[in-house]
C-alpha cells in the first residue's frame, strides 16, 4: 500500500499568501470570540461546587431544581451529563464560611425532595485555589513557549524558532477560540491538552524544518521556495500518517473516554488538525518571509573552497 504517489514537489509556497490569509481570518475570528464571549471556565478556575449524582431511572431535572430552590440555594445550574440518569449540579462560590459544606447540603436537599440520587462526585474549589490554578496555567504556557523557542533557536536558527512559535501559538488561540465560540467547558484537563498540543505540533514543525535544513545542505541550485516545497512534499506522507494515528487514538478517547475525557480529546482533535495546517502551511512561509537562505546552513569555509557563489548557486 502506498497512499502518497507524488510525482513532483507540490507548490505549497505559491499559495503561501492564501494559506496565511485563511489562517489570519481564523485567528481573528478566534480572538473575536475570546474577546466577546470569553472562556466558559470550569469550577476548577472559578471556584465553586460541582456535584454529580446518578439516578436509577431518568432524572427529573425540574424536581431537582425545585429541591434546590426550596432549600435556599440560588444561582445553581442543573443539567444532564452524559446520560439522562446522570445529573450535574453547579453552585457558585458563596461568601459564607459554609461554602465547603454545600455538597452535603445539596445531598440532604435531594434526599428529601428528589430521592434516589447516589453521589458520584463532588468537587469544591475555594477562591484562592482557582486563582492560583489560572495563574499557574498561564505560567506553564509561558514557560513552554520560551523553552521551545530557546531549544529551537539553539538547535536551528532564530527564524525557525520564531516561525514555529507563531504558527503554534496561533493553534493555541484557535483551540481557545473554539472553546469560546461554542462555550465548551474549559477545565484543567483541557489546559493540559492545549499544552500537550503545543509540544506536539511544534514537533511537526521540527520535522519539516529538519528536512528544510537537510535539503538546503544537500541539494544545490534550488530557490528557497523550491527547497521548502521539496521538504514539505517529502514529509507530507509521514505528516498525515502520524497525525492520522494520533487522531485515531484521540478519537478512541472521544468515543470511549466518557464525559471526563470528552473536552480533553476535543481540544486535542482541534489541536491536531490545526497543528498540521499551521506547521506546514503557516510556519514554512513565515520562515521564507523571514529570509531563510542556504548560506545559513552551509559552512562558509567549505562553500568558498568549492567555489560556490554567494547566492548558493554553483556552476
Amino acid at each position, binding site marked *: *500500500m*502506498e*497512499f502518497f*504517489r507524488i*510525482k513532483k514537489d507540490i507548490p505549497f509556497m505559491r499559495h503561501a499568501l492564501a494559506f496565511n490569509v485563511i489562517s489570519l481570518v481564523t485567528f481573528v475570528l478566534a480572538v473575536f470570540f475570546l474577546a466577546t464571549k470569553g472562556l466558559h471556565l470550569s469550577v476548577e478556575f472559578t471556584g465553586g461546587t460541582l456535584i454529580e449524582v446518578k439516578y436509577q431511572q431518568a432524572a427529573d431535572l425540574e424536581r431537582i431544581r425545585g429541591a434546590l430552590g426550596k432549600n435556599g440555594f440560588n444561582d445553581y445550574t442543573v443539567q444532564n451529563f452524559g446520560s439522562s440518569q446522570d445529573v450535574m449540579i453547579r453552585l457558585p462560590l458563596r461568601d459564607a*464560611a459554609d461554602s*465547603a*459544606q454545600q*455538597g*452535603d447540603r445539596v445531598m440532604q436537599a435531594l434526599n428529601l425532595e428528589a430521592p434516589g440520587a*447516589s*453521589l*458520584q*462526585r*463532588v*468537587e469544591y474549589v*475555594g477562591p484562592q*485555589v482557582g486563582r*492560583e490554578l489560572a495563574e*499557574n*496555567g498561564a*505560567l*506553564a*504556557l509561558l*514557560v*513552554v513557549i520560551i*523553552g*521551545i523557542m530557546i*531549544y*529551537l533557536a539553539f538547535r536551528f536558527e532564530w527564524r525557525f524558532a520564531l516561525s514555529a512559535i507563531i504558527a503554534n501559538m496561533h493553534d493555541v488561540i484557535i483551540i481557545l477560540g473554539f472553546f469560546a465560540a461554542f462555550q465548551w467547558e474549559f477545565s*484543567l*484537563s483541557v*489546559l*493540559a491538552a492545549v499544552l*500537550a498540543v*503545543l*509540544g*506536539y505540533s*511544534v*514537533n*511537526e514543525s*521540527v*520535522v519539516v524544518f*529538519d528536512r528544510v535544513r537537510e535539503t538546503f545542505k544537500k541539494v544545490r541550485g534550488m530557490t528557497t521556495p523550491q527547497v521548502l516545497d521539496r521538504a514539505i512534499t517529502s514529509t507530507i*506522507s*509521514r505528516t498525515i*500518517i*502520524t497525525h492520522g*494515528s*494520533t487522531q*485515531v*487514538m484521540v478519537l*478512541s*478517547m472521544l*468515543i*470511549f*473516554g466518557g464525559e*471526563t*475525557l470528552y473536552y*480533553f480529546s476535543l481540544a486535542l482533535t482541534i489541536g491536531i488538525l490545526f497543528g498540521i495546517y499551521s506547521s506546514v502551511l503557516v510556519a514554512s512561509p513565515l520562515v521564507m518571509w523571514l529570509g531563510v537562505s542556504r548560506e545559513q546552513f552551509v559552512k562558509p569555509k567549505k562553500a568558498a573552497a568549492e567555489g560556490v557563489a554567494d547566492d548558493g548557486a554553483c556552476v
Partner: protein
Amino acid sequence: MNRYPLWKYVTVAIALVFGFIYTLPNFFGESPAVQVSSAKVTLKVDATTLARVEEVLQAAGIGHDGIQLDNVGVKARFKDTDTQLKAKDAIERAFNPDSSDPQYVIALNLLTASPQWLTSLNALPMYLGLDLRGGVHFLLQVDMPGALQKRLDSTAADLRSLLRDKNIRHAGINRDGDRIVIKFRDAETRERASKTLADNSNDLTLAEAGQGDDLRLLATLKPEAEKKIAEFAIKQNINTLHNRINELGVAEPVIQQQGADRIVVQLPGVQDTAKAKDILGRTATLEIRMVDDSPGALEAGLAGNVPFGTELYTERGGSPLLVKKQVVLTGDRLTDAQPGFDGQTNEPAVHLTLDSAGARIFKDITRDNVGKRMAILLIEKGKGEVVTAPVIRTEIGGGRVQISGRMTTSEANDVALLLRAGSLAAPMDIIEERTIGPSLGKENIERGFNATLWGFVAIAVFMIAYYQVVGLVSVIALATNLLLLVALLSLLQATLTLPGIAAIALTLGMAIDANVLINERIREELRNGMPPQAALSEGYERAFGTILDSNITTLIAGLALLIFGSGPVRGFAVVHCLGILTSIFSAVVVSRAMVNLIYGRQKKLTKIAIGNVWKPGTATADGQK
C-alpha cells in the same frame, strides 16, 4: 551494517524482562483484606500482633488467605468481602474492647493478589488515584496569621507573668494586630523591662515608642521566629489530623504538607464524606480564660451592654457567662486530656496535663483566683463555645488539672477527645474538595482502558496493513512502549489518574510518530534506489535526529506541565514525560533490534516487506499501459 552487538540485544532483552515482571502485578487484581495498625504512638505493631490476629481469626473460625506484617501494620487477606467484614468485626472486638478508646485502627483494605515472589521484588500494581478507586481528597489551608496572633496572645500572657515575677510595674500589656504593646509610666521602668525581655526571649524584636506619660514598648516577632511558628503549626496540625483520621479507620490515608501553609488529605475508599469532613473540619482551638464574676457585670452584659474586655457566652447548661477576652492559656500548652473519675466524689471528670510553661502559668492563675471561675473555650471559626467553666478551689501546681462537675461519662469522653484532638495549632479551612464515588471510579478505569485498547488496535491494524512486516515491528515496539511505561509507573508507584490513562493513550498515539518517520524514511531511500540493507540503516540513522528533536520539544511541554500543574494536570504530566522517555527507547532501540534480527543476517537481501514502494518512474509506466 544491520547488526547489533550482543550487549545491545542483551539490553533490550533485560528491558523487556523488567517490563514484563513489573507489569505483571497489574493483572492479578486485588483481594479484600483487613489491616490492623496502631492508633497510638506508643503502641507498636509487631510479630506478636500478627500472632494475635491469627489467633483471633482461628477462634472465630474465619479462614484467611495469608497474613503479613509490613511497616504499615498487619494485613490479613480473605477470599471475599463477606469474610472480610466478618473478620473485621471479630478483630475489632478482640483488639478494641473499649470502643471509646481504640488502641488499634482496624480498616478494610484491598491488597494485590499477585504471588509472594512478585511482591518481594517490590513489583506492585500501579497506585490508583482517587478518581479511579473512589475516595475523598481535601486541600486544607492553615490560617497562618491566625497561628501567629494566637502565639502573640500567649506570648503577651507570658510577658505579663514574667514582668510580675521580676516586679516590674507596667500599665498594661495588649496585643495590637501583629505586635504586643506594653505601656509604662516612667522611662526607667521601661528600660528595666526592655532589658529583662531581651534577656528572657530570643523571639522578640523590641522597639520603644511614645513620650511623656505615654511610654510604650513594642514587641514584634522576629522573622525566623515566625517561620518556626509556622512550621510548628503545620506539623502540629498534621499530627492532629493523623489522630482524627485514625478514628475513621482508613487503610491508606495520605496526609502531607503542600507548599508553606497547606495540607493535603486523601482518604481512599471513604464514602461517608460528611463524617470525614466533620472530623477534619473540626478546626477547634482551645483557650482558657477567666470568667468575669464582678457583681452587676453579667446583668449589664445581658442587657446588651457588655463590659469592655469581656465577651458574653452561653454555658452548656444554658446559663449565660461573661468571659474575659484575655487568654490565660492556649491549647498549645496542653499535652494530654483523658476521661476519668474524680478520686473523691467519683464523678466523671477530665484529666488534663499541661507542659511546664503551662503548668507555671496555671499555678499563678489559680493561686491568684481561688474561688473564682475559669472558662475553657473551644474556638471554631471565630466562634467560641464554653466547654466547661469550673470553679477554682485551690492553687493547682504540677500541671495536672482535673475538671469535674455536672458531666456525664460520655460527656467527659467527648470533652477529652475534643481537647486532645481538637487542639490545632492554627485554624484550617477546606479550600478544595474532590469526592469520587466507587462506581464512578470503576467506570473511569473501564473508560480509560477501552479508549487505550481500541486506539491501539486501530493503529496496529493500520500499521501492519500499510507497512507489513516492518509495520508489525513498529506495533511490537509500540506494545513494548506500553509495557515499559506501565512497568515504570508500577515501579515508581506514581499515582495513576484518569488524565494519566489519557496520557498513556496520547503517548502511544504520538510515539508511533517515531516509527512512521523511520518507515517513511526507509521507503524514501528505497525509492531513491538504495539497496535494502543500506536503506534500513540510513532510514534509522537519518530519522534519529528528527525523532530526538521532536521528542525534546514535547518533553519541554511535559516538564512545564509537571512543574506548574496541579491535581489532574500533574497526573497527566507525569505519565506524559515518562512516556516520551520510554517511547524513544522502544521506537529506536527495540524496533531496530527486531529489524536487525529479521533482516540483518541476510547478506543478499533483495526485498524488505515494508509494503509496496511506489517509484515515480514505474508509476508513469503503469499509467501509460
